[in-house]
């Protein structure tokens, strides 16, 4: 394998996200890295995957980057343009979404996500974006993948507000509220994490090349489960990096 080329942590995150997706799956996407991961998967191993945007967009093929889901640039060449009730209702709520991508301000060890506020909800706080379709995707997708920066202030023991449910208090607590699915992966710029099958605590899966276990743990606000052997994340292939830079996100709108 040729490893004689550079890639950024964001590019590795996008590639790791793409590797989680399979052909013919239905994927609910927000903007940012998940868009890059999804289009990369479609251009490589998953050409028959279906991409959904919550406001009513199925399988667009944008040729210009957009500023958000409200930008008609990201609706271009869609196969269907409909509504929330269609996408989040008849597709997502009806269990037809295989994978949902989620990001957030904060995540805790059970994969619960906060996109609502920072601070104390009963005292001083700053209100941010809120849910949009995130709570719906977290509640109804067969599984979700969380994409976050690896920082102690984002990977926290206690988050200020649960906007979107992960495994709630761990163990069987999610299932007890009547929710199936749940987060399966957390992809950061330093590592890939999963969740323990019983306790539902976050668990290290692999560490990205160039990072140490000490650094990965020191930059988290809680201690994840660390298996005795933690492999190195498989680096991107040169063709994947070429596609990201030349085809999927040439203007670096999503990769920053």
């Amino acid at each position, binding site marked *: 394998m040729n490893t004689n080329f550079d890639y950024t942590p964001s590019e590795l995150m996008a590639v790791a996200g793409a590797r989680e997706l399979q052909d013919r799956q239905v994927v609910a996407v927000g*903007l940012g890295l998940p868009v890059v991961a999804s289009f990369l998967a479609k251009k490589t191993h998953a050409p028959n995957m279906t991409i959904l945007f*919550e*406001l*009513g*967009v199925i399988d667009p093929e944008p040729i*210009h980057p*957009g*500023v*958000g*889901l*409200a*930008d*008609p*640039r990201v*609706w*271009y060449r869609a196969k269907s*343009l*409909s*509504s*929330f*009730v269609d996408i*989040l*209702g008849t597709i*997502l*709520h009806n269990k037809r979404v295989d994978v949902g991508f989620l990001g957030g301000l904060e995540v805790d060890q059970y994969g619960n996500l906060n*996109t*609502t506020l920072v601070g104390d*909800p009963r005292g001083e*706080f*700053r*209100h*941010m*974006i*809120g*849910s*949009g*379709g*995130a*709570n*719906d995707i977290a*509640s*109804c997708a067969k599984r979700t993948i969380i994409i976050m920066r690896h920082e102690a202030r984002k990977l926290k023991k206690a988050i200020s*507000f*649960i*906007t*979107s*449910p992960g495994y*709630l208090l761990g163990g069987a*607590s*999610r299932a007890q*509220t*009547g*929710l199936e699915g749940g987060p399966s992966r957390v992809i950061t710029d330093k590592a890939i994490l999963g969740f323990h099958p019983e306790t539902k605590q976050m668990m290290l899966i692999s560490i990205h090349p160039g990072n140490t276990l000490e650094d990965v743990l020191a930059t988290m606000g809680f201690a994840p489960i660390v298996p005795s052997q933690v492999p190195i994340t498989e680096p991107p292939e040169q063709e994947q990096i070429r596609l990201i830079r030349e085809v999927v996100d040439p203007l670096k709108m999503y990769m920053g």
Partner: protein
Amino acid sequence: MSKVTTLAEAVASIPSGAHVALSGFAITRCTMAFAREVIRQGIKELTVSQCVGAMDADLLVGAGAVERIVYGGGSLDRFGRLACVNRGIENGSLQAEEYSSLSVAFRYLAGSLGLPFIPIKSLRGSDLMKQIRERTGSNVGTITDPFTGDDWPVLKPLLPDVAVVQVQVSDEEGNAWIMGPRWDNVEQAKASKRTIIIAEQVVSGEVIRQNPEWTVIPGLLVSNVVELPFAAHPTSVYRVYDYDAGQIENYVKATCSPETLKTYLDEYVYGVKDHWEYLERMGGMKHLNTLRADPVLGY
């Protein structure tokens, strides 16, 4: 029957304290000209609702016209947050009932169908659910499925007094076409007691009858039709014009503080007599023409 009227008359039909569903989504098809006229007429204490908070609601909140917002969170996409809505929530001057996109859509859907409530999978286990219970007492409940015995959260229907929907095309009766995604707009119109259509273009009834399958809001739900070009400016209308990035950035800067917002409102809302004067202040046709959508791209 023609329901065509002026923006001023359509807005004057809305009393202070009404619940208004707005058609905007972040920075697209926002009811901007409508919001500016509501502010000029001094209508207050509105409840506004929409699945995803948008620039129309933010401007109304910033100008002090809104008492309560029912929404699923929102932003101005990459341009910024809903600064006025957020500030109102932070300092307590705005009552916020905050859901997810689908829960608001389901509340409209229940309203549109005349159902007493609607079960939903979303919101379970979240602090959104706790907060809605605390703030409203009764807008969410739990019911046992009589067929399986499973417990389900249920939501009350959302029944706005009026939906205000920005569309591309309508006839005089209000048979309206929405091109591109429709997010919650059709359910908003169908859940509301009546609908005001703001159309970029009013066409003859014959145009509608030749392509009736494009009609997503039937005129029988519509009380007023207002024909107004660039009525969503500075937000976009798919296939008609693009968003005006410079003017959205201008708004984002202005909403950083109450002082700069006041200057903005004085210049672009109170300082103009009507929508036509607003368009002139924005640079008139010479500038607006640069925003015209490419017919293939739609933006």
